[in-house]
């Protein structure tokens, strides 16, 4: 029988360490599908973050470099500047990209580095056990906002696409959501665009992927998908930002 849907070559045939229903597995598969489609596995160098996706290099079947928490885009800048012919992307969570690494994010984007970034926004710190993220929604309960995030106390959810959209060095920004099979297909399309942009030397491209973290949200996989679709998108509207 002909295989209609199967594991991409760039994704190793191993079990992941992710919790049931986690969005990382889907997002990492999408990255691999795009890399396979573009035929760039042999010239890809990924930068893996600190956070749940730290061991993405155990799942990805191409060259990978670790980066300290928040520094993925600085490491990627070093890689890309000495090897401009290679395809370099970072895969980062919200704590990594929008809290501890905000300076690196803003300045890499502002320099218009010819890089691609896959930004996983799940509104929480998953790896450390569910603390408030810069993107945690107002009133969302986390380990460090037990009564819910209060704007007076913790400020507002940080909107990365909106923030970066004013920078001239940025070529492409799109926010997508892994909230359904359709959303997943749209996410892949956005990743494809962000990756093609780099191959065409268009500058900095970022895809923000709203992604479920069922365990730290205290929900089942299905409830998490539902919450993503109904609540999270109200704070983080989907669509093309640049």
């Amino acid at each position, binding site marked *: 029988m002909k295989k209609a849907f199967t594991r991409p070559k760039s994704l190793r045939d191993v079990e992941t360490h992710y919790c049931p229903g986690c969005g990382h597995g889907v997002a990492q598969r999408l990255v691999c599908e795009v890399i396979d489609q573009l035929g760039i596995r042999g010239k890809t160098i990924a930068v893996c973050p600190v956070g749940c996706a730290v061991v993405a290099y155990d799942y990805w079947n*191409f060259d990978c*470099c*670790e980066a300290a928490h928040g*520094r993925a885009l600085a*490491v990627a*800048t070093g890689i890309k*500047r000495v090897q401009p012919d290679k395809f370099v992307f970072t895969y980062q969570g919200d704590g990594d990209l929008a809290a501890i690494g905000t300076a690196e994010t803003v300045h890499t984007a502002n320099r218009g580095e010819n890089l691609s970034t896959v930004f996983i926004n799940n509104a929480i710190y998953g790896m450390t056990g569910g603390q408030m993220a810069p993107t945690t929604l107002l009133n969302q309960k986390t380990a460090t906002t037990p009564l819910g995030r209060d704007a007076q106390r913790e400020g507002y959810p940080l909107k990365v696409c909106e923030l970066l959209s004013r920078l001239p060095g940025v070529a492409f920004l799109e926010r997508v959501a892994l909230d359904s099979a359709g959303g997943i297909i749209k996410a892949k399309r956005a990743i494809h665009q962000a990756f093609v942009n780099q191959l065409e030397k268009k500058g900095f491209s970022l895809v923000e992927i709203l992604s479920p973290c069922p365990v730290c949200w205290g929900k089942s996989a299905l409830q998490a998908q539902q919450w993503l679709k109904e609540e999270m998108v109200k704070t983080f509207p989907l669509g093309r930002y640049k």
Partner: protein
Amino acid sequence: MNKKMLMTGNEAIGEAAVQAGCDFYAGYPITPQNELTAYLAKRMPEEKRVFVQAESELAAINMVMGAAACGRRAMTTSSSPGISLKQEGISYLAGARLPCLIVNIMRGGPGLGNIAPAQSDYFQATKGGGHGDYHCLVLAPGSVQEAYHLVFLGFDLADQYRTPTILLGDGMLGQMMEPLIVCSSPACRPGREFVVRRKRLPTKPWALNGCQGRGPRVVKSFFMQNELLEGHNKILQKNYAQIKNKEQRCEQLYLEDSSIVLVAYGSMARIAKAATAALRKKKIKAGLLRPISLWPFPAGAFEQLLKKKKKLRFLVLEMSCGQMVEDVRLAVNGRAAVDFYGRSGGGIPTEEEILKKILHRG
């Protein structure tokens, strides 16, 4: 062909980096090393190499990590407060076994301190500096010419041992101008024994350049399982043991018959050298031991001295409140008296102060 020029220490280090094949530089402005960054901003593009002014020292060291992970010669430079910021990245570089050169043109501390020359980052440079069980190789030049040579050696040692290497200078060395002999080909590079370049450097079968035609490679310092991290740390320690064994460097002056040995490095050693000569004029058998490698500390030289001569006295001189003196005491291990004289915050021990310290003790 050799060419004699007048250059600041900062510029000499920049020129040496270019000549040593540095492919990538990232830095962030901080006094007293700004001439170095500015020099490379001009020179690196001329040679079609990469220069990036980073948004912070954190970004700079991590950009270096990226370039180093690709197997390229990469360098960053800064001064004390900036080096503190780079410590996280240096720990990752050491953990991932990536070679690079880090220049610290030390200024006064702690905190913002001041921009005067100091040697108060000795602990930070030689004892690890960041988190985890690691060391960087640390080289301390005593002149502009030596700073130039040690850049070549620093890159070579970094590549040979796959470890970040620190060139530890001070604000005085960075700022002062001295005649410098630069040369266009490696063959004519003037050098003393300790700066002889490595003939054969290892290849870099770990470098990231895309997995075309080979299996994927990963550069990392993360080992979730205890046994794996312990195994990795054992590899690092074995490497450090080799470095300790083979890479101790120091300059020794009048030590054959000395009964009092001044110990100083970098700019401080220049003053110590003058003091040694002055003491010799006064018929006092003084000598100088100048560590050039601060890590590994040249403990072997102390061992030899103590073996040869029973009655010895050491005076450690530093532009700090006393840091290297701890390593001297460890090397001497109670077998001789070890005194210390130092000044900090931009204060520099003078020849007169050193003489007074020695003569008053009798």
